[in-house]
């Protein structure tokens, strides 16, 4: 066993046995679900299996990519992450009437790529800009956070437009264009998606220590460098979430209205 001074600047390996020991946490969660009839046993099991499978797969892929240092591979992994994200968004939003997948996917691809490029190439200033040790984690964090924000915003937009269809039509009947008639709904949808990122900025360092910063410190990095990275990450996440949410909401909201600016969403 390593003593404290020996811990500095090196990371302790977690053996398979130690990793399996962490499954005790899952047993506790399963027991809670079982005792209180939460109905989460199946989801917890699937989630645990997926966590192991996906992260091990990601680990092997990243090891391969870091060794090969190939720009096409880096961009390929990035594209796979965005495609996976759009499937998750589709699963959460469950909207069949309005075609929102393609504009959302394209916006995610362009916005997240630009953000990751800006952070790795300009803010961190790494050469080449696609250096996988920086570009892939940056892209992953942007995609993960903004994906959740987009799912929340889209779900809110569709739900409120359905619920408030008659109110929107009342405004349209009084001469409002579709933007004016749905301004409150648009604002609520974008805000709902943005609030988690803004709350995270409020609580960071006080309420919680973010995963990336914790990881860097565990890996032996100087905490003062780790916080600088974390600040960049927090700002990057708010910016990318805002840009992608606003663009997607603008495009998808237009698709909720027909050529006569009539509301296309019908009640469920």
């Amino acid at each position, binding site marked *: 066993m390593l003593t404290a001074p020996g811990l500095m600047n090196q990371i302790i390996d977690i053996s398979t046995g130690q990793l399996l020991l962490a499954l005790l946490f899952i047993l506790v969660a399963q027991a809670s679900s079982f005792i209180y009839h939460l109905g989460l046993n199946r989801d917890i099991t699937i989630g645990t299996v997926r966590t192991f499978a996906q992260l091990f797969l990601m680990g092997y892929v990243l090891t391969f990519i870091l060794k090969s240092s190939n720009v096409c591979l880096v961009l390929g992994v990035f594209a796979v992450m965005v495609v996976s994200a759009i499937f998750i968004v589709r699963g959460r939003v469950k909207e069949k009437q309005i075609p929102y997948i393609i504009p959302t996917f394209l916006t995610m691809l362009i916005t997240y790529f630009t953000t990751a490029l800006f952070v790795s190439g300009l803010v961190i200033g790494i050469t080449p800009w696609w250096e996988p040790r920086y570009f892939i984690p940056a892209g992953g964090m942007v995609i993960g956070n903004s994906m959740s924000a987009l799912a929340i915003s889209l779900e809110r937009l569709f739900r409120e437009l359905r619920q408030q269809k008659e109110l929107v039509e009342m405004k349209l*009947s009084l*001469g409002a264009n579709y933007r004016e008639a749905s301004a409150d709904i648009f604002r609520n949808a974008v805000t709902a998606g943005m609030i988690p990122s803004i709350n995270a900025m409020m609580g960071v360092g006080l309420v919680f220590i973010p995963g990336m910063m914790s990881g860097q410190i565990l890996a032996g990095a100087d905490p003062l460098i780790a916080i600088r990275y974390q600040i960049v990450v927090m700002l990057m996440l708010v910016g990318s979430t805002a840009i992608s949410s606003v663009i997607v909401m603008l495009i998808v909201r237009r698709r909720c209205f*027909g050529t*006569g600016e009539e509301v296309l969403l019908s009640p469920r």
Partner: protein
Amino acid sequence: MTPLLEIRKLSFGYEGSSSLVFEHLDLMVQEGEFILVKGPSGSGKSTLLRLICRLNKPGEGSILFQGNDITSFPPAKLRSSVSYVAQIPRMIDASVEENLLLPFSFAINAAKPRPGKEELQEMLKTFYLGDITLDHSALKLSTGQMQRLAIMRALLQKPLLLLLDEPTSALDQESASMVFSIMERLNSEQQKTLITVTHIDYKPEKVSPITFSLSQCSLHLAS
């Protein structure tokens, strides 16, 4: 003389439904006319009004407003001239005054003259709403009061054609009489062009509307 509204061979059916609501429906409305469309529930009366102001996707055939196809107008411009009042009146969560001035918050009506407080208060009286104040919460009004307020609000943007969708269906007898009286006065005193659809047996006292019955996918002249 170009009719204010002309419907030519309008056919319409809802998506996913094999039957048509209208088939080759024709209608001509001149300025100052009061058109009353009667028909049972589900015969397509509301759909007809919603198609005229483009709240529903267009069907086959054409609808002309002032001689031009309604699809040639920007939707907001069309709806500031052809104002639709829904069967269930909707208000924003604000005062009576803010609700009445809502149309002026939209770009298309921004240049139109805004009525002042005194003018609004006077208008409220003519709509049998003299007992409510402008700062009263609109959401606390009764359905009958809301319906009259909704008609007044639609008129404030000075539309050329007013479409009233079952304006009395959710009202008691007294409120319904007030709305009928308002409709008749608008037509007889202000020469407003109205199209009203209703499923109830309404016989106007002061005006003689051109009455159609809507059945079997078409309009039939009743009077």
